[in-house]
Structure formats: structure tokens, C-alpha cells
């Protein structure tokens, strides 16, 4: 099977969907001639031109709002917000408009918009360019929230997102763009609400989001050397959440670590922990552990950033203490 990069998988998904459906178009900053700040849309402007790959003025709120309006009137826009940190500027259009218009209109409006963005740290991009804010969007009824961790997942999930008739917040990761993985040449889609079990084990369950999936797998390798077999699960979509796969695993292992790059406080890990407690309390032999970013803004200096954002060592340590 061919190996391609995550950013190429993004581009291929968009390209295939744009060929398949004339109504799909892209709007965002520097996505056209520049090919996107992380080159995820490279080549698309050359192929589809200004009409369908639209470089917008610097207005996240207008970009998001225009995408909502276009989606309500027969088109299927994919709006890129360059950094998830800038979603803040577009929040009204995403949270008060896109998420709610169908409901408030009694089902009259369809808003088939995809807000594509990227999150995460590890590149010394500092506090305003390194956040992971999926919890904000997961909190809002009316939004689906997707965090793909691999080239295979990002392609299949992005195609599903474009075809979904409801608003989707699609969150890539800046340090995943240049990771490689196997992606079939034939078309495939990945449904929402289906977690992926990357690695099976019976001692410990690790639920990981986005780039933490890769770190969790690294940690699992290390732990295997110490006789601890970890099961690594990627929910892939936070909304809708595949809780069943997580519960089945916890029932087997009795121990759960949830790990994400987002700040610990009120992160998605808190929601998953609450759900597991509500529906699987008696499966647990130990308290649930969350391995997340410390509750401080992401600092610039790499040595500090590595301290704040969860790493393999912290995961291993958490696992050891759970299995002691």
C-alpha cells in the first residue's frame, strides 16, 4: 500500500471531494497560491482556480460567516481557520450561528459546513499558536468534532466530514502534517463515532487524542519492555464519541489513562472520565488518570514547552503508577 504524508492525505481528500461534487469549495487565508500555511492545500488552486479555492481577506469571522451563509444556500464550503487559536475570532459564527441555525429554524436550515483547522504544540510556536481547543467545540450541541491522528484517518474522516450535512469542526495537528502512513489508492470513508484500537493489551487502556496517539504508542512500546501491555485507543471523533469501545477495553483492563495535548482543566479527558465513571465505574480497579497539558499557557522555550505538553515519559510514569 502506498505511503503518503498526512498533509497529502488532506489534500487528496479535498481534491476527491471537489471533483465529486461541484458544490464543494475552499475558503481561507493563503490556501490558494500559497498552498496553505502547512501546505495541506498545495496544488488545489492550480487545479481548481480562484472560484473554488478562495483566498480570503484577513477576517476569520467573515470567513466563517460566509461559509455558513454559503452552506445555507446550496453550497458545501470547507473553511480553513489557520490556527485553532484563531477560531476565537470566529466563535460567534461557529457557535451561535452554524451550530444552532438548523435547530432554531425548526429544521429548515441545513448548514453543511466544515471548519478545518489545526492545533497543538511542540514547535516553539508559543501560547497563541500552540493551543488545543477541541473541548470548546465538543461542548456545543450542534457541532461534530473530529481529531484524526494518521494519514489514513485524516483522509477517510475528511471525506466523511465534507459529505456530512451538519457542521463539522475538523482538527488536524501541526506536527502530524509531515508524518507518513499507509493510505489506500481506492476510495474509502471512515464513519464518525468509530474509535480505532491501535494496539491491543490487557493491562491498561490508554485513550489518546490527535498527536498523543503517536506518543501513547511509543509509551506502549516502552511499557511492553517492562511487562505492561497497554491497549491504545483513538476515539478519532470526540463528538460523536464511541464510548462503547472505551468501556469494553476498560472492562478488560480495569485501568484507564486519558491523554490529550489540551489543558487538563475541563478538557475532553474530563468528559470521557465522567462518562466512564457513570457507565463503567465497577470496571475500574484504580482511579482514572489524565495526562494532559499543565494548566498554564504554552511557553515559548522548548525546555518549558516540553515540560508543559504531555510527553512519552509522563505517560510511562502514569502507567507504572497505575500498574504498581
Amino acid at each position, binding site marked *: 500500500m502506498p505511503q503518503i504524508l498526512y498533509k497529502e492525505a488532506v489534500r487528496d481528500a479535498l481534491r476527491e471531494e471537489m471533483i465529486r461534487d461541484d458544490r464543494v*469549495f475552499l475558503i481561507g487565508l493563503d490556501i490558494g497560491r500559497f498552498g496553505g500555511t502547512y501546505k495541506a492545500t498545495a496544488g488545489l488552486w492550480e487545479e481548481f482556480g480562484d*472560484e473554488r479555492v*478562495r483566498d*480570503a*481577506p484577513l*477576517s476569520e*469571522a*467573515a470567513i*466563517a*460567516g*460566509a*461559509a*455558513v*451563509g*454559503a*452552506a*445555507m*444556500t*446550496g*453550497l458545501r*464550503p470547507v473553511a480553513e481557520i489557520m490556527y485553532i487559536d484563531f477560531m476565537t475570532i470566529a466563535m*460567534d*459564527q461557529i457557535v*451561535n*450561528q452554524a451550530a444552532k*441555525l*438548523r*435547530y*432554531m*429554524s*425548526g*429544521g*429548515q*436550515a441545513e448548514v453543511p459546513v466544515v471548519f478545518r483547522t489545526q492545533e497543538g504544540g511542540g514547535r516553539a510556536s508559543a501560547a497563541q499558536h500552540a493551543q488545543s481547543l477541541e473541548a470548546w467545540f465538543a461542548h456545543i*450541541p*450542534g457541532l461534530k468534532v473530529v481529531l484524526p491522528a494518521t494519514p489514513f484517518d485524516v483522509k477517510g474522516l475528511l471525506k466523511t466530514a465534507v459529505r456530512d450535512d451538519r457542521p463539522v469542526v475538523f482538527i488536524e495537528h501541526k506536527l502530524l502534517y509531515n508524518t507518513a502512513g499507509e493510505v489506500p489508492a481506492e476510495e474509502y470513508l471512515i464513519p464518525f463515532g468509530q474509535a480505532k484500537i491501535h494496539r491491543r493489551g490487557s493491562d491498561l487502556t490508554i485513550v489518546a487524542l490527535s498527536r498523543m496517539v503517536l506518543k501513547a504508542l511509543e509509551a506502549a512500546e516502552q511499557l511492553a519492555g517492562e511487562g505492561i501491555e497497554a491497549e491504545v485507543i483513538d476515539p478519532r471523533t470526540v463528538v460523536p464519541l464511541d464510548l462503547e469501545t472505551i468501556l469494553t477495553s476498560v472492562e478488560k483492563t480495569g485501568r484507564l489513562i486519558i491523554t490529550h495535548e489540551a489543558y487538563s482543566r475541563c478538557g475532553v479527558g474530563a468528559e470521557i472520565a465522567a462518562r466512564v465513571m457513570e457507565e463503567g465505574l465497577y470496571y475500574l480497579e484504580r482511579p482514572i488518570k489524565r495526562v494532559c497539558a499543565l494548566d498554564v499557557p504554552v511557553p515559548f522555550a522548548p525546555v518549558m514547552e516540553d515540560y508543559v505538553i504531555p510527553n512519552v515519559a509522563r505517560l510511562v510514569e502514569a502507567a507504572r503508577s497505575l500498574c504498581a
Partner: protein
Amino acid sequence: MITEAGMALDQELMRRMHLTMVKIRRFEARAVELFMAQELPGFLHSYLGEEAVAAGACAALRDDDYITSTHRGHGHVIAKGLQLDRMMAELYAKTTGYCKGKGGSMHIADFSHGILGANGIVAGGIPIAAGAALSAKMRCTSQVVVSFFGDGASNQGVFHEAANLAAIWDLPLIFLCENNFYAVSTSQRRHQKIGDISIRAAAYGFPGVTVDGNHPLLVYQAVKQAVDRARQGLGPTLVECRTYKWMGHYVGDPGAYRPKEEVEAWRGKDPLPRYERYLVENGVSTPEEIAAVHQQVAAEIEAAVAFARESPAPLPMDALADL
């Protein structure tokens, strides 16, 4: 300022505008009564006094043109063609309302008439209108979009962002600013340095015009010119309509922040009798015809109220549908 509209206007169109104004006037007055009698939940933001703007503007539109509206949107949606009974039912939070009781006064929508929704976020509809205009342009349908908003909204960031976007992409979008000189309790004099909001269009590179919003024909003329421009692919226009709302920000707000003399002066320039005099003086309608319109509308509204009162209320778990 544009000068008095000429007689070249179609008389049937002029009478239709009158009918629209009467519908809005009587619907709003009745809604206020019902609200004060505590029959309607939530809030009401009354359009009383501003009828000429909605009537004139929407008369220049096709049924398939789009509008985005505001928290003060009853006038817009009535002018765009909504039925009074289903509107009343929505205010009564019944399942027969346009939004099945899910939206209420501030979120009335009907996509079959191009109404993309009233919006409870000030200026929230403006970028959406830009998106609809973009969509119309990309789909080559010759549809245009009118985005209604107030003087307060003209200070909101997204107004400026949408104006810039509409300009650079030549979107078929009419920015219709209803300047009623107050954003809730803050007078225009205290919330912006400029007098005519229409000059802001120049900052983005497209035309802006200010008209007497209390004369439906002047509004119609300005909007029609803007609509024609848009349909020809010439891009956006900002049409500022100077008007005045009779009641406070919401029904129940005594509006003590407005000087009594100012309110009385504007009430003295009531757009409805003023237009009725104009119609009679210019031989478009007789006083008897005008009275008949009032009677007909009054009956329609009573029927709407009865319909709304008799309609079923939603079940609590209907809240889970339409997500």
C-alpha cells in the same frame, strides 16, 4: 439624499407596499398587546414606526432573493411574504410556528421565501448574508441578498469584515442599515463619530447612500438601484434608511434615555398616515380603499391570533429534535 420619487412607479406596487405597512403596523401593535397581557413568552423587539423601511426594501426583491434579519425582524419577514398566522404561532411558541416553537421572535426563518433567519446576535447575520451572496454568485442564479442591521451593528467588527469581503469579491449584497439613532440605550451621537453611516461604504470601495427611511418609495428607489447594480455583477451597496422606533429597545423598556420631545416629533411624522395621504393625493388609492385594507388586515390578524391560540404546544421532548 435622494429627492422625492417620481410617478413612474407601478401603482399596484405602491398599493402593495401600503398593504405591507398596514400588516406590519397592525401585527406589531397586536403582538405588543398580547405580550403585555402575558400571552407571549420571551422578549419582543417591536418594529412599530419603521414599517416603511421593510415595505420599501422588500418591494424591490424577488421571492427567491435572500434577506437576513435582526432581533427586530418582524417587519422584514412580513414584508418578505411570511404568513401572519404562522408568525403569530411562532410567537406563541406553538408547533405550527415557522420554527415549530424552536426559535421564537428573534429567529423566525422561512427558506422557501429566502428568509435566512432573524438573528439574535447583533450583526450576526451580516457575514452570513455575504456567504449567501457568494453562493448566489457562484451558482449564477442572479439572486441578490439584503442584509438588514441597525446603527449599533454598524460598529460591530463583522460588519466591516463582511463589507470588505463583499467589496473585493463584488458580491450581490445590499447592506441595509436601519438607523434609528439608538443602540439599546446609547444614542448614535454617543456611539459613533460619524453622522451618515453610508459614508462607511467608501472605506471599502463601494457606494453608500442615505435616504428618508420613513417614506417607502424613497427606500424602494434606493434599494431597487442597489439591487439592479448587484444583479449586473457590480457589487455591493450600503443603503442607510433614517427612521425611528416608537417603543424602547424591547417591549417593556420605557426608553427613558430618549428625550420626550424627540419621540413626539418622530411620532408626528408617522410613516403610515403620511404614505396614505400621499397615495390619496396622487390618485393611487381612495380613502375607502385604504380603510378596506385596514379592515382586511385587522380580520387577518384576529384569525392569526385565533390560529395561534388554538394550535398545539410542543411536547417537552420535542426539544431533542432538529439538532
